[in-house]
């Protein structure tokens, strides 16, 4: 069991890709701190893990709030005593064309996706620096590299996450902490469930593997980056997109 004795904190872990990442890490023995704004869903997810004998607890926090994040890390440290793995997965979309995009839509997406990732890296760096080890994986997106009409806020936030990933990797490398990003393409989740049928079809025409990805496709890449097999990999963006970006 590769992650036995390790604690993984997963933001947005209540459902979707975050939950699938929790599954993959728990299957390899990790203890789970499931963090989400959706209290009921997070608690149900944590309870489902505990029923199967996985050590797991739900924590409610808005990653966009530094105060929330500070309290969160205090609670997780008090509960589990350490944080070995941080997965910055919490993310939102507020799509609109630039001409129509409201300030609130821009700000909300940047606050959760980019600032939220920064807040959690900052909070995690203290215990990880002390431990002289740690693994951080940030969930970016293919659109952070390619752009996407209607997603100025989201693509900017994800491009920001990629820059942040590389800087954090450089700052923390000398202490044995790796920081990488996984950039999913089109993955079937609640987030993409909101897309129209045409938009979904259009997406698939640009996916060489000709199917939407599953949350598990993403989760396996995350598990790899957290494993000993990836010990010498840092500052990278691993694209899990069926070949959309080459």
């Amino acid at each position, binding site marked *: 069991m590769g992650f036995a004795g390790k604690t993984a904190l997963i933001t947005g872990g209540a459902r979707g890709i975050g939950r699938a990442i929790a599954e993959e890490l728990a299957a390899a023995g990790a203890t789970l701190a499931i963090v989400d704004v959706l209290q009921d869903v997070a608690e149900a997810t944590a309870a489902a893990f505990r029923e199967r004998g996985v050590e797991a607890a739900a924590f409610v926090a808005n990653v966009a709030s530094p105060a929330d994040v500070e309290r969160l890390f205090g609670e997780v440290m008090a509960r589990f005593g350490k944080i070995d793995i941080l997965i910055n997965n919490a993310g939102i979309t507020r799509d609109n064309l630039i001409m129509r995009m409201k300030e609130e839509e821009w700000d909300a997406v940047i606050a959760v996706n980019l600032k939220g990732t920064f807040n959690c890296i900052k909070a995690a760096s*203290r215990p990880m*620096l*002390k431990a002289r080890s740690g693994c951080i994986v940030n969930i970016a997106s293919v659109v952070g590299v390619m752009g996407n009409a209607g997603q100025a806020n989201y693509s900017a936030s994800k491009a920001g996450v990629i820059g942040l990933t590389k800087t954090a990797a450089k*700052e*923390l490398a*000398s*202490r044995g902490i790796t920081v990488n990003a996984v950039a999913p393409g089109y993955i079937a989740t609640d987030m993409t469930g909101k897309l129209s049928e045409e938009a979904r079809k259009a997406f698939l025409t640009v996916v060489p593997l000709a199917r939407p990805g599953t949350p598990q496709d993403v989760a396996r890449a995350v598990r790899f980056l957290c494993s000993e097999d990836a010990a010498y990999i840092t500052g990278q963006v691993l694209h899990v997109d069926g070949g959309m970006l080459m």
Partner: protein
Amino acid sequence: MSSPAERVREIIVEQLGVNAEQVTDESKFVEDLGADSLDTVELVMALEEEFGTEIPDEEAEKLTTVGEAIAYVQKIVGG
């Protein structure tokens, strides 16, 4: 209980992984004790934790020797 100065020296020994004999008031963190930029940040964080205080960045930047760190802490905790 050990004095603030002793506690500061202990933290420096632990954080920088140096021998106690190397830690004199004149020792410079970077030049003499081999600290890199992360070490100095961690050192400041360890001092903040130990003495329950927040050291502003502009003050932290001025702490380049062991003696300066001790003097700063003594000023805060008195003694």
